[in-house]
């Protein structure tokens, strides 16, 4: 008799996939509107997602502070498009800009501290300058916001199902009617029937795609974005026929040399005194308060690349230096780092090493390659966060189109996607019978890993993927290299003889399957976009055989989708100015 995995069928109105900032907000809003809402999470909502152990900064428009200087929300939208650059879905950016402060106030009602007695600003906020030409990024006690949001979801009646990895979407007559996944601690198949699905499954952790040696390869998940972010939502959406955009874009960062996580020092919202220096002590990245005066090249990424370039010029090593800072500035950095993802661990690490901002410089280096942030890759949606497949919405980092949307983007679009999903559900009662095919496919894939004998460990596949991606799809890209890279990925997927001896390893095996599929989409995008492109002097796509930027042909988003016949369809999408 054919072996079967245990199954559970769960019904709801709204299914939210991924309980990060966007997913939590979507579930809160969904339940608040009276929808029978389920949020399904691969880890545990208390500490999952990029906001796991904190976010200390959210940009927003504060009318009571920026109003008196005549800086309107529309000015902020213009400013974002000017300072960040790149391809921006203006309608979504407007949604974020007009709603971010309301979402901050929602967090406050959940018990997150956002106002301070020693503030000198109206409203009691502590604001710093981060992305825009005004001081409009809130610093706050965000360390435990995920815990507070999880409690709020429960309070509002949203049901949380933790430790289930969603791998596919269920469709009926071209409409999404649910999702299917597997329990990461019990190997059970979960079949969710829903009237609408919001995908809030984050960007792909660049470290798991490009790092060498690969994460988990006897090392650790020393990655900037959560190692659990393996593009599961992208592959599920792609296989359901949804368009994905801008997956080919990636960019380099500067990070602490050995500890990839740990905030964005020296220059970020939480480091007013931080400066980037070379071996000779020359200041390459000035302090935050000075850097904005020379912002022609984009304030966010270009200065970091300038610091990395010191290494190529023979003036390394490079350091983050706060020793020039006042005691007040350093105390501020330590406070805000306590609330920023990984910052708490960073301070723990520094303490153990006897390293102090007051007396020591911290060595920096080229960080992991990042996907999705400046390029804003992800599921292509309209101004209602609705994807090209009816019933499928996307929010947060999973949604393509808003570079540096970050935390405000996740909070605002999560809430907004649930609002739009509710309208869709009212107009379209689409619950249908589940097509067995998608469920059978997942079961067969799971069993192929579980029943393998003498198979490799998933880490073997991880190392192979990282080696392929870093060799063929980073700084030596050309048509012939990318074609060879795709052959390598196809070979890897066809020989991915990895074995799962338990539910946890099954999750990792399925992640490898998804990462390899995402790798193909990245390379196919690299191959199709026949140009090199920069955002404000920071490269996001480099082709050695097409070194010039080609605005006539390629100043647009590149979308990829799977046709009913199984063909890959490319399309160009313009969404600037709506």
């Amino acid at each position, binding site marked *: 008799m054919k072996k079967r995995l245990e199954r559970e069928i769960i019904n709801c109105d709204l299914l939210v996939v991924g309980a990060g900032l966007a997913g939590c907000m979507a579930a809160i809003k969904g339940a608040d509107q009276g929808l029978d809402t389920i949020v399904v999470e691969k*880890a*545990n909502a*208390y*500490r*999952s*997602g990029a906001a*796991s*152990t904190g976010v200390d900064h959210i940009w927003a428009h504060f009318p009571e502070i920026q109003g008196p200087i005549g800086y309107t929300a529309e000015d902020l939208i213009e400013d974002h498009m000017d300072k960040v650059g790149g391809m921006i879905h203006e309608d979504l950016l407007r949604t974020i800009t007009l709603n971010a402060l309301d979402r901050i106030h929602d967090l406050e009602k959940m018990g997150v501290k956002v106002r301070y007695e020693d503030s000198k600003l109206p409203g009691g906020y502590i604001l710093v300058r981060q992305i825009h030409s005004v001081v409009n990024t809130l610093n706050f006690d965000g*360390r435990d916001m995920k815990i507070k949001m999880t409690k709020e979801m429960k309070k509002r009646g949203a049901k949380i199902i933790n*430790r289930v990895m969603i791998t596919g979407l269920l469709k009926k007559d071209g409409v999404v009617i649910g999702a299917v996944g597997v329990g*990461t*601690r019990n190997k059970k198949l979960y079949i969710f029937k829903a009237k609408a699905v919001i995908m809030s499954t984050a960007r792909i952790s660049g470290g798991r795609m490009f790092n060498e040696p690969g*994460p*988990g*390869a*006897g*090392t*650790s*998940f*020393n*990655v900037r974005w*959560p*190692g*659990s972010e393996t593009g599961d939502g992208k592959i599920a959406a792609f296989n359901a026929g949804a368009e994905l955009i801008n997956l080919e874009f990636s960019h380099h960062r500067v990070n*602490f040399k*050995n*500890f990839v*996580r740990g905030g964005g020092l020296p220059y970020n919202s939480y480091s007013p005194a931080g400066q980037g220096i070379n071996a000779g002590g020359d200041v390459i990245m000035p302090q935050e308060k000075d850097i904005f005066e020379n912002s022609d090249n984009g304030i966010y990424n270009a200065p970091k690349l300038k610091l990395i370039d010191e290494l190529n010029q023979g003036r390394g090593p490079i*350091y983050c230096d706060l020793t020039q800072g006042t005691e007040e500035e350093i105390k501020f950095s330590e406070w805000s780092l306590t609330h920023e*993802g*990984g910052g*708490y*661990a960073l301070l*723990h*690490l*520094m303490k*153990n*090493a*006897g*390293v102090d901002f007051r007396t*020591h*410089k*911290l*060595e920096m280096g080229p960080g992991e390659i990042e996907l999705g942030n400046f390029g804003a890759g992800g599921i292509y949606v309209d101004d209602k966060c609705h994807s090209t497949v009816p019933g499928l919405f996307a929010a947060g980092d999973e949604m393509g189109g808003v570079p540096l949307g970050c935390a405000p983007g996740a909070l605002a679009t999560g809430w907004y996607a649930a609002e739009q999903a509710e309208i869709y559900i009212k107009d379209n009662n689409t619950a249908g019978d589940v097509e067995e095919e998608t469920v059978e496919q997942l079961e067969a894939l799971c069993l192929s890993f579980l029943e393998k004998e003498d198979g490799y460990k998933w*880490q073997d596949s991880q190392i192979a993927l990282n080696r392929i991606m870093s060799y063929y799809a980073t700084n030596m890209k050309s048509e012939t290299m990318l074609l060879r890279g795709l052959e390598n990925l196809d070979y890897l997927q066809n020989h991915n003889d990895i074995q799962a001896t338990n539910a*946890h390893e099954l*999750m*990792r095996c399925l992640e490898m399957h998804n990462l390899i599929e995402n790798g193909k989409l990245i390379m196919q995008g690299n191959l199709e976009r026949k140009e090199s492109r920069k955002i404000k002097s920071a490269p996001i796509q480099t082709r050695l055989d097409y070194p010039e930027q080609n605005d006539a042909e390629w100043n647009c988003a590149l979308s990829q989708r799977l046709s009913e016949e199984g063909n890959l369809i490319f399309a160009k999408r313009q969404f600037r100015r709506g």
Partner: protein
Amino acid sequence: MAIKINYDLCTKCKTCYTRCPEDVFTWREDKTPVVTYPYECWYCGSCYIDCPEGAITMDHPLFMRFVPEPYEYKNKTIIKREY
């Protein structure tokens, strides 16, 4: 490496096992958390922050640590040139 549990302080409340975003813990039959997958630790600090007993410490692997700058050599080689 990764996460160290002081079992003298642990009250087996399951917080670390429940919340870990990378699922590095398993729950052993004798009702204790075990760091089964240390190489998958993200060092986010959730177990360390949330443990109500302070029973958990993070031990970063050698390759993730800061080498202090300024640094004081412990075993500096004395070099003499014969040319």
